[in-house]
């Protein structure tokens, strides 16, 4: 176990790159500021301009004219969960496609076929889930 004495000191070149990188994301910061402003204006506007006279009956839980029958926290069908898991798996599959698409010109035919093998394996799973009826709704 050796403790190397070097402390992380980013070089000036690295720091320069960071500045460029952050300025590349400046439009996103502008979008975030505008979105925050618009949503704050909508919420604050209704808070300020709306007439608010709350009382106990108005604030109570309401379900088609009845009091709420029971707690909303109850067991759902596990089928929703299955849909979410299948979505995550295909989401991850797509995540692998981005670097592949960018570097396809450099990695040649081998990289191309390695991705096709990957997609083939997942297609087997896709056919399985299709034939099994996991995508059908009842």
């Amino acid at each position: 176990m050796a403790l190397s004495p070097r402390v992380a000191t980013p070089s000036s070149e690295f720091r320069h790159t960071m500045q460029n990188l952050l300025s590349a994301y400046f439009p996103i910061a502008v979008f975030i500021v505008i979105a925050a402003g618009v949503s704050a204006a909508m919420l604050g506007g209704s808070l300020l301009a709306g007439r608010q006279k709350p009382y106990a009956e108005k604030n109570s839980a309401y379900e088609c004219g009845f009091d709420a029958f029971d707690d909303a926290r109850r067991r759902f069908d596990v089928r929703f969960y299955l849909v979410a898991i299948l979505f995550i798996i295909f989401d991850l599959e797509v995540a692998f496609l981005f670097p592949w698409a960018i570097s396809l010109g450099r990695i040649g035919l081998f990289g191309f076929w390695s991705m096709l093998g990957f997609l083939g394996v997942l297609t087997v799973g896709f056919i399985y889930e299709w034939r099994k009826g996991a995508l059908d709704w009842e």
Partner: protein
Amino acid sequence: MITQITFYLFATILVLCAGMVVSARNPVHAVLFLILGFFNAAGLFLIAGAEFLAMILVIVYVGAVAVLFLFVVMMLDVNFNQLREGLQRYAPVGAAIGVALLAELIFTVGRLKLVPGVQEPTLPGPQISNTEALGRLIYTDYVLLFQACGLVLLVAMIGAIVLTLRDRPSARRQNISLQHARLPADTMEMMQLEVGAGTDALGGFIRPRDGYGATAEPIDARALPARRSDEKLGA
């Protein structure tokens, strides 16, 4: 200067969010704080120059994993006060995991080396982006690991289906081609009614005539209760 400010902004919010995830009383709020934490971690990745990781964090973790967490929290019929009672019992395990993570952090920050001969990671350089550097390596140099990833995803897919999918004999499955082939005349009927005459007085009728189940196919017809097509409403 700007880099430092953004770093401390993201890092502060991230740490605060992490604290709220643990301490929030309402588990749904805890998951929402987790999502905010994911966003700030993505910001930290951006500052560190790992823009691919940042985007994947947003797409996969915020878009999918956090939604799954929300599902679990909202679906399970768990009494969260009961869960809290086990805190004393599970505290040692949690503390052990925390100590392990802390040790790993110290090793990383202090650049301690447990295994000799491990090279320092090299930055790809400013002229090639992070995503492209990954792409050049994953599909060629690490092709076996990449294919193993595919197999892991396949196992996850099949495992999820095997664990959660079960046939319900009484369930009726959608038949989309039947639904598409349905004509308005099959379901709609224009009637001339006397003024003041109600459906009860006319003997009642059922809409649509063959029921809404006509375009769904039963998996096992014998398991279904026999349907009476001449069933009348208001009888």
